[in-house]
């Protein structure tokens, strides 16, 4: 049976893993290869790297980091941050990424997603959707949740799925950082509406939250950062917990 996936997310800047403390101070949290090896040993199903300081100048550093990680761990790697054009995707795939996450650029040039899926295959293209509740619906935000777009997030996820995105990395800006759990309403609404896979993100504080995202939210995969980085739980503990809830996972 197809397993539900547990994906640790690593924020990187200038080729190093960084941690935000209270979302203000960014501290160096080490070498990406070491972090990747640690999660590999814990049984992570995939790794996601997001370049939070993506800039034209730092592209080379990011490519180099991806290549180095890909030499040491043999599992799917998703890389995102500052992807604006087909050439960026090609560069990351060539460096060793298996999937590339597109965020802000998809909002400004939706056709990029269609072109990318046609050229590189749906399973290679992830669209990151940052959603925030506005009155009775959810709206897409860009720039780390600061800029509203006026776009309905559920409709947007559907459009991106129809354009060929293989996965939607769905982050609730309301839940992110709260440790109160995923926005289950958002996750489930999107999962029911689209044919692409849904990765739930934002808000995990307990193992129960991971189970909720998969069972109540109907997500295909759960992504979390701080509970793994700060050593609150290991990936293995998370998967053992999910298995105890009857959720199919790879142990």
């Amino acid at each position, binding site marked *: *049976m*197809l*397993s*539900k*996936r547990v994906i640790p997310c690593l924020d990187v800047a200038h080729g190093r893993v960084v941690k935000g403390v209270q979302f203000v101070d960014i501290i160096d949290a080490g070498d990406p290869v070491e972090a990747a090896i640690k999660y*590999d040993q814990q049984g992570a*199903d995939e790794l996601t790297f997001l370049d939070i300081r993506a800039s034209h100048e730092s592209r080379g550093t990011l490519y180099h980091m991806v*290549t180095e990680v*890909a*030499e040491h*761990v*043999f*599992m*799917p790697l998703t890389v995102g941050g500052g992807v604006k054009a087909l050439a960026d995707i090609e560069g990351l*795939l*060539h460096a*060793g990424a*298996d999937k590339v996450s597109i965020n802000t650029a998809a909002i400004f040039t939706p056709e990029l997603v269609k072109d990318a899926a046609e050229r590189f*295959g*749906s*399973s290679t293209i992830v669209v990151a959707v940052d959603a925030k509740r506005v009155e009775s619906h959810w709206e897409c935000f860009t720039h780390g949740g600061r800029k509203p777009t006026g776009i309905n997030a559920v409709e947007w996820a559907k459009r991106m799925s129809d354009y060929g995105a*293989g*996965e939607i990395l769905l982050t609730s800006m309301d839940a992110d950082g709260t440790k109160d759990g995923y926005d289950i309403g958002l996750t489930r609404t999107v*999962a*029911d*509406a*689209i*044919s*692409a*896979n849904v990765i739930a993100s934002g808000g995990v504080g307990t193992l129960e939250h991971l189970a909720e995202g998969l069972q109540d939210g*109907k997500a*295909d*995969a759960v992504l979390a950062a701080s509970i793994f980085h700060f050593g609150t739980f290991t990936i293995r503990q998370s998967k053992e917990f999910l298995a105890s809830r009857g959720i199919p996972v*790879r142990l």
Partner: protein
Amino acid sequence: MIGLVNYGMGNLHSVAKALEKTGGKVELVSDADALKQYDRIVLPGVGAFRDCVGALKQTGMDVALKERLAAGTPFLGICLGMQVLMDVSYEFGRYPGLGLIPGAVNPFPASHPERGFKIPHMGWNDVILSSQHEPHPVLAPLAGLQVYYVHSYYCAPEHPEHLLAACSYGDYPFAAAIGRDNIVAVQFHPEKSQRAGLALLEAFQQWNP
């Protein structure tokens, strides 16, 4: 020395690294004439069926591959590198394959998100070894482990003896591995399947069909 067939369609880095990690010496081969220098051949798979077969034919690699396979060189096909072995594929039309294993490449049915069935089939799933014969030496290390799949099409071999392992997605059983003689081919990605995948690649390098 392992020849990793390079038909110019994608990144072979992770397959090469995984083979090296499991003790292999690897070289990329783009020249069909050079293929005979290698004592094992790996055909990875990226892209669309039609383009892949087209690239193999254009470079003469199709003929060279058939020749080496007939000569008994141990061969591993991965993902699309498995699918091109079949007679025919129905990916975006109807295209002939290399015809090394009788059968077809079929699409999964359309997505049914409400039933939890989504295309592509992506993620970790089983490898159920065929009970018809002894476990294949290359696949035996995978017993009880899951591996990483990413695909929207699957191989349906005509003869049951060519089916070495199966998997199922939703209600759909499909071929996880096929083969005969010195040919073994897998739908999943050993180079992305952590210890299970590395164990397979190691077993392939020790295989003497």
